[in-house]
C-alpha cells in the first residue's frame, strides 16, 4: 500500500476514530497524527539521524498495544485480513498466545494451521490464500522447510520470526524469497534488557572476583583482597544493535566508557550512551580489542560475522581483558578464545553461546576456572518466549491488519 493511499484511507478512519474516542483526547491526538502520516509520526531517536521512520521495537521504550487498541476500538479500519500459517512444533507452548484455541487473536486474523513440514499443511489450504507465516525455532530443519512452505503457498506476503536470531533460517533460498518483496520481521528488542543485566553481572563476576569469594567460602577462609571497580573502565561492544545499546545504557550508568563497533557507525554518532563508534573491519576490531577492559560480543551470526573474532583479534586484546559472548557462538573462533584464556592473554570469559549447543561434555571450556558458562539461557525469563509470541499477536499482527508499517524488518541478505 503506498503512503498516499494509506493517508487517504486513513483520513476517514481517523474521523471514525475521532467520533469513537471523543473524550480521550491524548490518545485521539496521537492516533490522528499516526494515521495522517503513519511513518513520520513514529518516534525518532536522536542518535539515528538517517532513519526517517523508526521501525524497531524496544520492549522498554516502545509503547505497547497501540495498534491493538485501535483495531479493537474500530474494526472498520481493517485494511486486510491476516490468514496465518504457523511453522512450529505443535507442542511448543511458547506459541500459545497464537496457537491456543482460547487465545483471542486480533479482529481480522485467523490461524489456519500449525505444522513443521509441507505435508502438515494440506493442499486445500491454498484456496484460503494464507498470507502470513509465523516461524518458530522449534520447527526442526526450519531452514529447509521455510522455502518449501513458501513455494507451496505463494500467497504469503509476510514472514514473522519469533526469535531475534534468524541464523536458524539461513539458506541460499532465503534472500530469493525476500527479494520478491516478501517482508520478514523478527523479535529484535525483546530480550535486550535481560541480556544487558547478564553483561553487567559477568563484568562484576570478574571485577569483584566471585570465583575467589566462592573458593574462600568453601575453605572457610577470611581473606580480604582488593577488588576492581567497573567505574572508569572501558567496555567495547562488538555489534551495536538493540542488545548492544541496552548494555551500553547500563554500562554508562556505571560510569564506564563505551566504545562500539557496527556496520553503520554514523547511526550511533549522536548516541549519548556510546562514547566512540567504529565501523567494521579487521583494523577497527583490533583497535576496539586493544582499548577495552571488557568486550561484549552481541553480533548476530551472518556470512560477514562468522569467525570474526579470531586469533588476530585476541592478540590485540588489552591486558587483563574479560571477554563476554552473548550473540552467537560462531562469531568467535572458539579455539582462539580457548588459547587466549590458557595463555593468560585474557583474564577470563563469560559465555552464554557456543559453536555447538549443548556444549559437548568433553569441551575444554568446562574445565577452565576463569570461564563463566551458562546454557544459552541468560535471556530466558519464565515468560520471554511467550512475550515474543505476544509481540507478534499484539503488535505486528494488528499493524498488518491496519495496513500500518510492520516493526522489526529483517534484511535476509545481511542476515539480521
Amino acid at each position, binding site marked *: 500500500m503506498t503512503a498516499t493511499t494509506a493517508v487517504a484511507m486513513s483520513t476517514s478512519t481517523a474521523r471514525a476514530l475521532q467520533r469513537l474516542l471523543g473524550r480521550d483526547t491524548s490518545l485521539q491526538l496521537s492516533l490522528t497524527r499516526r494515521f495522517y502520516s503513519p511513518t513520520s509520526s513514529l518516534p525518532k531517536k536522536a542518535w539515528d539521524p538517517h532513519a526517517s521512520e523508526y521501525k524497531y521495537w524496544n520492549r522498554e521504550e516502545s509503547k505497547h498495544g497501540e495498534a491493538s487498541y485501535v483495531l479493537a476500538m474500530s474494526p472498520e479500519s481493517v485494511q486486510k485480513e491476516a490468514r496465518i500459517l504457523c511453522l512450529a512444533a505443535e507442542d511448543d507452548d511458547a506459541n500459545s498466545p497464537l496457537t491456543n484455541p482460547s487465545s483471542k487473536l486480533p479482529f481480522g486474523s485467523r490461524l489456519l494451521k500449525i505444522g513443521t513440514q509441507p505435508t502438515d499443511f494440506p493442499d486445500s489450504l491454498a484456496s484460503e490464500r494464507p498470507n502470513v507465516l509465523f516461524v518458530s525455532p522449534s520447527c526442526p530443519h526450519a531452514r529447509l522447510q521455510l522455502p518449501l512452505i513458501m513455494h507451496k503457498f505463494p500467497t504469503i506476503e509476510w514472514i514473522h520470526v519469533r526469535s531475534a536470531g534468524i541464523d536458524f533460517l539461513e539458506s541460499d533460498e532465503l534472500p530469493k524469497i525476500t527479494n520478491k518483496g516478501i517482508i520478514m520481521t523478527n523479535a529484535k528488542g525483546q530480550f535486550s534488557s535481560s541480556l544487558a543485566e547478564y553483561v553487567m*553481572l559477568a563484568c*562484576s563476576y570478574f571485577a569483584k572476583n*566471585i570465583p575467589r569469594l566462592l573458593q574462600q567460602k568453601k575453605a572457610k577462609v577470611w581473606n580480604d*583482597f582488593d577488588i576492581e571497580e567497573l567505574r572508569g573502565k572501558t567496555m567495547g561492544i562488538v555489534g551495536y544493535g538493540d542488545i548492544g545499546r541496552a548494555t551500553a545504557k547500563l554500562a554508562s550508568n556505571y560510569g564506564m566508557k563505551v566504545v562500539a563497533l557496527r556496520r553503520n557507525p554514523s547511526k550511533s554518532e549522536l548516541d549519548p550512551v556510546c562514547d566512540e563508534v567504529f565501523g567494521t573491519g579487521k583494523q577497527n576490531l583490533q583497535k576496539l580489542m586493544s582499548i577495552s577492559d571488557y568486550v561484549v560480543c552481541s553480533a548476530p551470526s551472518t556470512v560477514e560475522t562468522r569467525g570474526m573474532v579470531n586469533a588476530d583479534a585476541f592478540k590485540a586484546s588489552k591486558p587483563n581483558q574479560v571477554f563476554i559472548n552473548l550473540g552467537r557462538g560462531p562469531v568467535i573462533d572458539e579455539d582462539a578464545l580457548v588459547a587466549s584464556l590458557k595463555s593468560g592473554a585474557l583474564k577470563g570469559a563469560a559465555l552464554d553461546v557456543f559453536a555447538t549447543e*549443548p556444549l559437548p561434555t568433553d569441551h575444554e571450556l568446562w574445565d577452565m576456572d576463569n570461564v563463566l558458562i551458562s*546454557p544459552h*539461557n541468560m535471556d*530466558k525469563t519464565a515468560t520471554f518466549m511467550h512475550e515474543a509470541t505476544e509481540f507478534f499477536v499484539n503488535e505486528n499482527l494488528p499493524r498488518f491488519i491496519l495496513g500500518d508499517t510492520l516493526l522489526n524488518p529483517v534484511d535476509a541478505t545481511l542476515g539480521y
Partner: protein
Amino acid sequence: MASNSNESIYWNRENNSAHPSSSFNGPIIKEARIIALSDPNDSHNAPLYHGPLPESARLLKIGSHLDDFNESSIIEQQPNVIFVSHPSARDPLIQVLNKFPSVEWVHTRSAGVDFIASDAIFASHVQLTNAKGMFSSTLAEYCMMACSYFAKDLPRLMRQKEAIHWEQYPVRELRGSTLGIVGYGDIGRACAKLAKAYGMKVLGLKRDISSFRKEDDPHCDAMYGMDGLHELMSLSDYILISTPLTNQTRGLISREAISKCKSSAVIINVGRGPIIDEDALIEALQKGVIHGAALDVMTVEPLPKDSLLWQLDNVLLSPHNMDMTLTFMKESTDFFIRENLPRFVRGNQLLNPVNKAAGY
C-alpha cells in the same frame, strides 16, 4: 565561617570529581597541627605520612596509644587536629582528647564512625568529620551484582559447570522488581541510581524523612520513615541494608522484620553486621523464609569458622572488601588532605560533618 552556600556540605566522589572544588574561601587564618591515631605502617596513609601537605598544615606524630604522644615537644605545639584510622582507637582517642584540649577537629578515614563511637566522643566539643561518599559507587556495583547473583542463579551455574551439565533454566529479571533500601544515605542513593537504570522500582527508608522531597530525587519511588520498615520489607524483592551502626539501628533487622519478607526476597548488607539479628537471619535462610542473602559485613569480623553462614548455599559472603579497591583508602586520606585540611586552615566549613546526636 565563610562558605559557599550553594555547595553541599557532603562529599560525593562521583559528583565532586566531576566538579573539582574551587571554593577554599579566604586567607589562611590558622595552622593545622595534626596527630594521627593510626598504624605507622599503613601504606594507605602515605599521602599524610609522606606529604606534601597543604600550606600551613603539619603532621606532628603518628601513634596508637596515649603514651606515643608523651614527648614534651608535642605537648608544646598544641595539636589541634586528630586523623583517626586505627581500628582500636576508641579509648585512646578519648584519652588523647583529654590530654590535648587544644584539639578542635577529629577526622576518621572511614565512613563508619562506629569504631570510635562512645558517649564521650559524642559529648565532646570537637568537630567530627568522616569519609562519607568515598565508597558509594563501588558498593552500588556490589549491590547490583548481589541482586543479579540470585536473579540469574549463579550458584546453579556453578553447580552445573562443576557437573559438566548443560541444562537451560529460567532466569529472573531485575527489571520490574523492587529494591528496598534501608538507610537512604549516600550509599543508598548510589544504589538507587543504578537500580533505576536497571528498571527496578526503588523504595527507601530514612531516619529523618522531613527533608526528603520526591521531586528532588528521581531515583526513589517512595520514602518511608523508621515506622515503615515492615512494609518496606514486605514489598521488596531485594533489600539493601546501608545504614550506619548506631543505637537506633542495632538489631533493626529483627526476626520480626525478616518474617515480613517475601519468601523470594534477598537481603544484602553493606552497613554493619550488628544491624541484622544474625541468628534470626541464619534461621530464616535455613528454613526458606527468605531466598538468600549477600553479606559483606558480619557481626564478628573475621567471621568465626564455626558460623553457619559459611555453609549456607544461599549466602554470598565477602570479607568486608566490596569497597576495597586498590586506591580507596588512599583516596580517603587524599580527601582529608586536599579537601578538609585547606578548609580547616581557612576557617571554612568542613565537609562531611558527623551528626553527634544521631551518631553518624
